[in-house]
């Protein structure tokens, strides 16, 4: 127990000593996951909207598919993206394996079903009359879509935060397609896994604290947002 407390104290010192190697890892983590969510979220929200408003064959099957895909383990996504990007894979010529781009692709694949499913749930909560009112007051379908999204903005923000929380903390996919290269693709979860396997707990705990703080902060924001979306 004393050892753990000692390592935790050292971890705090390490964090606040602004050790560049440590903050590099944190920077890579945020950079990759933020870019993944920024590219992925708008597309996922529009897909969710089309699933909500559209009446086309296979719509329900698509909704069920996105709900099911949320359960795909990160390591399986990692394996799939690895096979696609590996030299002998169909996208091998792009030479993306073990780059941040590969990590972004993997994280997008991971976040997309969650974003679609949660956004769809939020948009389902919007009243059809919101859409019809926007249209009848002169909005074109694109403007009406943005209006409806604004009406359920708290649910959509919650979806984006949940998607970000999923990818910032995942280790399996990033490890496989990123390769855990120091200064390039080593992010918080892969660094923690590596340091722990080496028995170097101080850096692992320091990075774990960052992740833990982030998770608590995101959950706080999430519940705050959901509180704002109260019935009126």
């Amino acid at each position, binding site marked *: 127990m004393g050892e753990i407390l000692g390592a935790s104290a050292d971890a705090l010192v390490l964090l606040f000593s602004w050790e560049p190697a440590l903050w590099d890892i944190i920077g890579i983590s945020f950079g990759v996951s933020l870019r993944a969510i920024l590219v992925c979220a708008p597309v996922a929200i529009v897909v969710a909207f089309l699933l909500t408003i559209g009446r086309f064959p296979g719509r329900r099957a698509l909704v069920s598919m996105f709900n099911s895909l949320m359960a795909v383990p990160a390591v399986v996504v990692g394996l799939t993206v690895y096979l696609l990007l590996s030299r002998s894979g169909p996208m091998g010529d792009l030479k993306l394996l073990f780059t941040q781009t590969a990590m972004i692709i993997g994280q997008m694949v991971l976040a997309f079903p969650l974003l679609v499913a949660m956004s769809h749930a939020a948009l389902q909560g919007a*009243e059809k009359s919101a859409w019809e*009112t926007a249209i*009848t*007051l*002169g909005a074109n379908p694109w403007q009406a879509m943005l209006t409806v999204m604004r009406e359920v903005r708290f649910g959509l923000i919650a979806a984006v935060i949940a998607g970000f929380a999923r990818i910032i903390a995942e280790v399996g996919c990033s490890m496989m397609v990123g390769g855990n290269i120091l200064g390039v693709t080593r992010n918080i979860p892969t660094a923690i896994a590596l340091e722990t396997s080496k028995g170097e707990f101080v850096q692992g705990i320091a990075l774990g604290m960052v992740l833990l703080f982030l998770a608590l902060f995101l959950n706080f924001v999430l519940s705050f947002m959901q509180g704002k979306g109260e019935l009126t």
Partner: protein
Amino acid sequence: MNVAVICLEGVKLRLGGEVLLDVARFELPRASCTILSGKNGAGKTTLLKIAAGLQRPDEASVQTDTGDFDWRGARPMLRRHSIYMHQHAYMFDLNVGDNVAYGLRKAGVPAAQRIERVRTALAWAGLADLEGRSARHLSGGERQRLALARARVLSPALLLLDEPTTNMDDEARQQSFFLIRRMVSEGTGIVIASHDRQMIGQLGDQHVHLADGALTSVDNASKPSRPRASGAAVQNAAEGP
């Protein structure tokens, strides 16, 4: 373009294998108030939404003084000239003024003009003091007047109201009647889906009844009759035997 009259013809809609609507002619004149009555589930809301360009019928054509169109071709025109108001008018999660400004923004009205028109519309509806308040926190009567102001500010040729006085007290209802009458006198054609006998008596220039998918015009004694030969608001689709 401003149309004097919009007329739906041959409106057919089946839902779940059942004929919901089979309306031969539904005339929607300007500067006139038409009451559309019918039992719950008769298809009044659906007919109003078709007239507003919000719901697609299986078949329908649209006649205006500028020509005849199929419903799909006429949909942009229907949306441009008519406004549909839900039974419980939807208020965007904005303040009262921004709700009224919504349509003006979409129409690209410049800010200065928009502010002026919003103020005028709110004064018209007796809501000038509530401009900054959240529209979600208004009473039922205030919401209804706000919805009317939000529609009027866009000067529609046609306003389609779905049960506008449901769950309103008498005072709020009279205020809504007053605003509706003013809009008719300003030249707006209004169609009201309603069971409200007081409304039928006080506002209706024409009264049409929807039953078994077909429309019949109703005379002053409130009995269904065959449509008038000319100038009738409606013509029964089920004419004949």
